[in-house]
């Protein structure tokens, strides 16, 4: 993908707060490229997902080709290239959580949100019609002692049961 082919309708730019944070970040590394992951995290927080415009902007900031940025974005599961719900629900399904019935939690969420589970190449599949939730499975979240666990955006919820899941969902602001 060469830079010219990408069609960008509205350019992306950091808001002031993120720009400040970026300026602080970039000073930490001897080469600009190293600021890639933190910069992409900032951009995703602002925009919701990594659009072509974001990639172009990040490439300009870090003095790289858009191709290089895309290369990185596609490698890491935490960067989304499609829109996701307001709340991203990550359900851990690795062995220690599986031994503690994470499947019950996942099935309950599927039913409750009436959605399928997203795959990395198809996030829409796990996103509710109202755009409020995206449901996905993830690997061990390093909290196996309190399994089964889920993350809703940045927050971890422990020792889950279907009842607790209901409580969590009910408490989320609209």
């Amino acid at each position, binding site marked *: 993908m060469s830079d010219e082919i990408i069609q960008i309708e509205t350019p992306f730019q950091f808001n002031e707060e993120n720009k400040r944070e970026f300026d602080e970040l970039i000073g*930490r590394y*001897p*080469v600009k*490229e*190293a*600021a*890639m*992951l*933190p910069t*992409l*995290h900032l951009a995703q927080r602002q925009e919701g997902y990594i659009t072509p415009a974001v990639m172009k902007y990040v490439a300009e900031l*870090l003095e790289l080709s858009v191709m290089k940025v895309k*290369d*990185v974005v596609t*490698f*890491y*599961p*935490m*960067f989304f290239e499609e829109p996701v719900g307001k709340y991203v629900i*990550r359900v851990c*399904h*690795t*062995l*220690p959580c*599986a*031994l*503690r019935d994470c499947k019950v939690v996942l099935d309950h969420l599927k039913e409750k949100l009436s959605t399928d589970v997203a795959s990395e190449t198809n996030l829409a599949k796990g996103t509710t019609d109202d755009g409020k939730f995206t449901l996905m499975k*993830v*690997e*061990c*979240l*390093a*909290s*196996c*002692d*309190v*399994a089964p666990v889920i*993350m809703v955006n*940045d*927050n*971890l919820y422990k020792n889950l049961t279907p009842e607790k899941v209901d409580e969590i969902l009910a408490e989320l602001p609209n």
Partner: protein
Amino acid sequence: MVQERRILYEHLDVPNINTFDVFRQYEGYTRFEKAIAEYQPEEIADMVKESGLKGRGGAGFSTGEKWSFVPRDIEPRYLCCNADESEPGTFSNRYVLEKNPHLLIEGILICCYAMGIETTYVYIRGEFTLGKKMLDAAIKEAYEQGYLGENVRDTGLNINIYSHPGAGAYICGEETGLIESLEGKRGQPRNKPPFPAVQGVFMKPTVVQNVETLCNLPFIVGNGVEWYTQMGPTYGDTRFDPPKADPNTGTKLYCISGDVNEPGVYELELGLTSTELIEVAGGLRGEEVKAVIPGGSSAPILTHYELDTRLDFTSLTLAKSMLGSGGIIVMNETRNIVDCLLNIMKFYAHESCGQCTPCRWGTPWVRDIVQRIADGEGRQTTITRPKFGVTESGRWGDTGETEEIYEDLDLLENVANNIANVDTMTWNTICVFGIAVSWPAVSYMRKFKPEFEAAIREGKLVTLPVAEATVPPEENYAYQQRFIPKEFADL
């Protein structure tokens, strides 16, 4: 009953220990002050070597030795703290970051002083939002208090610490994957050599160290090598005991999960057995232990015959397994080992970075074979192959006899062994992720062969009673190193 020996975790639950003031009340930063006041950098490095401290992140490599490979004449040098913690079953670093981040900073300061390092990056896995927030706050405080920044405590040292978020890829825990990722690239491991100690991040000498390893440093400096080396197994006379020359000193943050009543992190002196650990963790949830994974999902499984194996670096290596990250997963009699292997293989198939063909293709292939067996569609044809066992010479080898085996089980073993061969310990891949795939695949299949056979024969998952599901050690080369040394020991 075995007692917890809290050293790293001693003050973990003190309210507000994450703040500088409270940390300071509990000897915080005094060990670093002692280091700079009483020792030369090289002396600290020597102390760490003498302490026998081994890396707690997975490989169990001697920390002091690793430091000795770092060329001291190349500037700048870097420290990368590995806080990626993504090995399934491991969760001890998270608590350090979230509750006691100043301890990690003090450990980093000591390492930086010993190695003449000015810049440290703490690579934190992307999902640890709270951990990163707490660490960032602690770093900020340490700058304000003059423990970080230029001219630290008027010593002329310049030390900076930056946290760096990952983005959800397991392979970035591998040290060279971490380095690539830190440089802003895909986290694909590098060929070694050159090792990071010589050419690491930004092609400069780099020390990569796990959070727990670094947290040991304040205690080694503060209490001395002699105090430190007293912690660890004292050996009796059983033939499995590791030789003294290979030290297993200090405590370990054992993470125990799965079928126990009180899962959690337990800090204990190295060298207790699985039975003891299960007891410490509130006992087994269930009737009988079927299997124990001793070092994160990459480690070969232990059967009920091996519950007396000490959980330290050397004993587990002799048992053909590893302590790895210290993530212990317990399974009771209701668990089906085929099902457990399927879960783990899905994990690895998802996490392969895709650089090496054997790993990229082999790992999903292994997963598919296990999936097929679990679905009751395992191939029922059998093949005849040479049988391995104790030969006339008393050594392990080809017995000259043959055995019948289901085609799919032979295939499973073959594909896995061609990613990385667990018998010869050679691998066809860039990083040891390959071993982390074939170790569980082959060990589960060999040690719990009856359960795999039953699934193929019956066309569905069958959970056998523990005794029937497990192959006895005498009959199986998965246990080879553990049971063969007897022959050598008797010589």
